[in-house]
């Protein structure tokens, strides 16, 4: 069964460094998402991506963040100049249809980011 895969599973970085989190969505899916979960808190929406552009983003997704689909398979989240509060689990998800039609997002296992 196809799955969303994420790399790395865990990354430790120094404050101020840039981080790139990678995701390979399910191949015939058209909608891509990044969510994050700070330890002990809720899963928060960051951004959705469709047709090679951002379709929606939350207020968390400021200029520090960017997303890219560089080669038609990978979907990356770049965090520039990381801060301590960026430490979280970052989840990539994909769906074939818009979420309000089926509600089924397929999630990756997450990338844990630790900023020191």
């Amino acid at each position: 069964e196809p799955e969303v895969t994420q790399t790395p599973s865990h990354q430790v970085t120094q404050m101020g460094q840039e981080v790139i989190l990678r995701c390979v969505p399910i191949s015939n899916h058209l909608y891509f998402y990044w969510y994050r979960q700070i330890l002990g808190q809720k899963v928060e929406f960051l951004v959705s991506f469709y047709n090679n552009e951002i379709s929606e983003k939350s207020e968390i997704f400021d200029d520090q963040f960017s997303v890219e689909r560089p080669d038609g398979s990978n979907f990356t989240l770049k965090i520039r100049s990381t801060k301590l509060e960026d430490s979280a689990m970052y989840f990539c998800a994909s769906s074939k249809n818009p979420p309000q039609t089926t509600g089924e997002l397929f999630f990756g296992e997450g990338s844990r980011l630790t900023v020191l």
Partner: protein
Amino acid sequence: AQRVTQPEKLLSVFKGAPVELKCNYSYSGSPELFWYVQYSRQRLQLLLRHISRESIKGFTADLNKGETSFHLKKPFAQEEDSAMYYCALSLNTGNQFYFGTGTSLTVIP
């Protein structure tokens, strides 16, 4: 604004006992509501959606617009139901989900 509230962070029940995981939402339009589940060492996955009116693994959830609730219920809990459960809301516009903070369910043998 907190769109989805799950008041219980932890919930323990004995095997065979009924279980109810609470979820309340705030949205003035017509929401789409879902329950997602994360078993130990597994990824977050869809459990059920209100529009399907389905029962999955014995779980059901009824959307109560008057009480703005979407509680998840199962009459007889099983040990394999132990997991983290997230209630989620999708607006009828846009592509994002709003998740609750989750309830960790432990079913005691």
